[in-house]
């Protein structure tokens, strides 16, 4: 099998990188769209109970629906290919992003908000200089969880014709050729792992200075 894997890379490396590229592009675009929607919504949710309840409910419902089902559900509406896959991944990225954004902004101690406004910060300055930096570790944690979810689910997007590393896995399964399955599977696992390690590092860097500082 090692032989076959080496052979694959010798003959098809350009195809492999194309799959990796498709996979990453699909994940990145889905994440960007999801973040643009989820961060402001989560911020509003941290101040408004109704929005928060709605977001939580929405997230819970989404968690019950399997990613694969979501992908197929979109076919009647959006057909196959990149767009329905993108839509499904955006929706899948919402729950972790929303929940962590709400949590993050709720965790900002009212003390800092009061001191900020007492120093004469406008609502916008308060958000930019105090709330967002202090909520940032939580926001990044949400991005991490969503990204891992999206990288894994993007594998299934192949089923509706969006390409990516899933193609290798399903080709392998179809041809009963395990080397393809291994290449595809290991690549996806590596991407998830890298994303996780990268974000964990980023989070620890960001919150290096603000831990243990709530105590007097």
């Amino acid at each position, binding site marked *: 099998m090692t032989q076959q894997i080496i052979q694959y890379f010798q003959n098809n490396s350009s195809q492999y990188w194309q799959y990796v590229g498709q996979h990453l592009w699909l994940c990145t675009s889905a994440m960007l769209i999801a973040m643009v929607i989820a961060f402001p919504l989560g911020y509003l949710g941290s101040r408004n109970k109704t929005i928060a309840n709605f977001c939580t409910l929405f997230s819970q419902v989404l968690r019950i629906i399997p990613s694969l089902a979501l992908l197929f559900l979109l076919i009647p509406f959006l057909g196959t290919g990149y767009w329905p896959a993108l839509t499904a991944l955006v929706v899948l990225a919402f729950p972790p992003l929303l929940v962590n954004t709400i949590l993050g902004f709720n965790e900002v101690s009212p*003390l*800092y908000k*009061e*001191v*900020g*406004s*007492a*120093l*004469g*910060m*406008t609502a916008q*300055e308060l958000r930019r*200089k*105090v709330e967002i*930096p*202090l909520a940032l570790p939580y926001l990044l944690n949400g991005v991490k969880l969503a990204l891992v979810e999206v990288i894994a689910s993007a594998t299934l997007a192949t089923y509706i014709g969006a390409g990516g590393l899933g193609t290798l896995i399903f080709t392998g399964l179809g041809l009963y050729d395990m080397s393809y399955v291994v290449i595809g599977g290991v690549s996806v696992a590596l991407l998830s792992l890298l994303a996780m390690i990268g974000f964990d590092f980023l989070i620890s860097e960001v919150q290096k*200075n*603000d*831990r*243990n*500082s*709530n105590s*007097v």
Partner: protein
Amino acid sequence: MTETAIQFEHVRKSFGNEVVIPDLNFKINQGEFITILGSSGCGKTTTLKMVNGLLKPSAGKIMVNSQQISELDLVRLRRHTGYVVQQIGLFPHITVAENIAVVPRMLQWDQEAIKQRVDELLTLVQLAPAEYRDRYPKQLSGGQQQRVGVARALAANPPTVLFDEPFGALDALTREKLQEEIKQIHTALQGKTFLFVTHDINEALFLGQRVMVMKDGRIEQFATPTEIVSHPATNFVRELLGTVQQNQALWRDFND
């Protein structure tokens, strides 16, 4: 002729059905060091927070430098009113220098002026600028953090500074040292009005040029420390003074 810095006229404050302050009237002159003394829930912090508009009075007029604050731009007013709280509230994600520079930066001072001001203030609160400037709040002790808190409040040279039990959470020795220093700072800066809330009678009498004793949202007595000690106006004030005397009695017993 001294000018009035802060004036309350028939100020009432209630939270829901609960009236915290029924009818408050007082005048504070520019440059005075005023302490507000009272037990918890007497409305002293509420009074303080109404001065910079963190809380709005339910009725009545509050004047700062002869202007009614309901007609002032609160953001502007607050940038020119220092504020120090018991929980200190230094922003944990930025350095000491950046914390002190918050208000000057919003007022768009130039970089060089800010840097100079930060060093000047750190020196004023007895922290060596070179050593402390780039530290993060969590790397400081409670006392050092509150020194930075004081420096931050003074940063943009505000005419009025509000203190909400700033030394309440510090140990006795640090507290005593900071009390001495804050008194010196008030003298050194000349012309600044300090309004200092405390529940510690010794602190109130030591720091205040005049002491406002509050109970249930009413002023029991507003006079110089000497006047309060020699002529307590009400039973409540007498009782408060009694606690000090009790302490002194205890010390006498020890020493005998």
